[in-house]
């Protein structure tokens, strides 16, 4: 059958094998021209591995890289901001001399919370102070995710954990 046969390729006709063939070709063409990064599902699975399902999702709101003057010359400092319904989480990522990352963070509104940094190796935990400041002195480079644990009753967004997408340190 030729696809051009009138009546067989009209918009209101039922999908036939030629259509499925074309859709298959489109899929193959885009799969080759613009493939999903092969390791993306793994990163997503990493960030989904949460203990409780009741979570509030923080979205990446802003990201800025800049050169900062350090003792040994220019170094890269990266600032990342996440927003959720109840919290804003801002972190600055700097390099330690041993190759690990230092992460300084702030919560807004400021409050004491338990904050977990999940990495592919293990989990680090710190607490923020009354000003909402927290710091992870040494974090292994690689994939990492922040989880702000539920706070005291009465605090903004205290009932649920707030999680960020996985980011590459």
């Amino acid at each position, binding site marked *: 059958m030729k696809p051009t046969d009138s009546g067989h390729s009209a918009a209101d006709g039922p999908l036939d094998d030629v259509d499925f063939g074309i*859709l298959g*070709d489109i899929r193959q063409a885009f799969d080759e021209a613009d493939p999903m990064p092969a390791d993306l*599902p793994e990163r997503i699975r990493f960030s989904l591995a949460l203990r409780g399902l009741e979570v509030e999702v923080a979205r*990446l709101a802003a990201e800025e890289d800049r050169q900062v003057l350090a003792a040994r010359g220019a170094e890269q400092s990266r600032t990342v901001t996440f927003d959720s319904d109840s919290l804003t989480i801002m972190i600055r990522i700097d390099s330690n001399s041993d190759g690990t990352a230092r992460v300084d963070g702030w919560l807004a509104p400021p409050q004491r919370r338990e904050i977990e940094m999940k990495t592919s190796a293990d989990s680090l935990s710190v607490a923020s102070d009354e000003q909402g400041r927290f710091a992870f002195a040494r974090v292994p480079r690689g994939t990492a995710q922040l989880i702000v644990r539920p706070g005291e009753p009465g605090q903004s967004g205290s009932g649920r954990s707030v999680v960020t997408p996985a980011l590459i340190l």
Partner: protein
Amino acid sequence: MDDRRRVAVPTSQPDRGERMARLVTAAREGSEDALGQIVTELSPLLWQVARAAGLSAADAEDVLQTVWLRLVSHLDGIRTSSALTAWLVVTTRREAWRVRATARRQLPADQDWLAALPDTEPGGEERAVLDDQRRALWAAIRQLPPRCQELLRIIAFVSRPDYSAVAAELGIPRGSVGPTRGRCLAKLRAALADGPEGSLR
């Protein structure tokens, strides 16, 4: 029709819908493995949805992470494979628009993502026929209105039984790809038939 075409069609086994529904149930009950299988199965589709919306690769990755994290708290309302796919596609599209709307992510004025795609790589002689077909396909796709390009790019990655649900969610009341061919696919077929190569085989 040759076999290659048939093989390239997205999975359409009758048990796929049941399998996905079982995975959704297990994920709702807290199975990380079930959720992970759903992620592996549907992320390639969502990648295309985000990229078709004009996002950079980095932004598309962020959007996919956000969408999957959000799904976790929406699993309660989702029972079927079609509902799951439709929710994921429309949420990815909304998140992509949201990201695009933020001032810091300026896009080129024209959002012709097709123009930004790399050309088909030159292959050996044995690939020449296939390359001709591929070039004809790209040429035909480029003739379509942007709306049709986006729809077909997305639908091509959707499992057959989910076409109607996804097309409906994409907000095309008539002419969608579903039980009927739809305006976009009909146009593409016509363009392929009229193309310089002359036929679709």
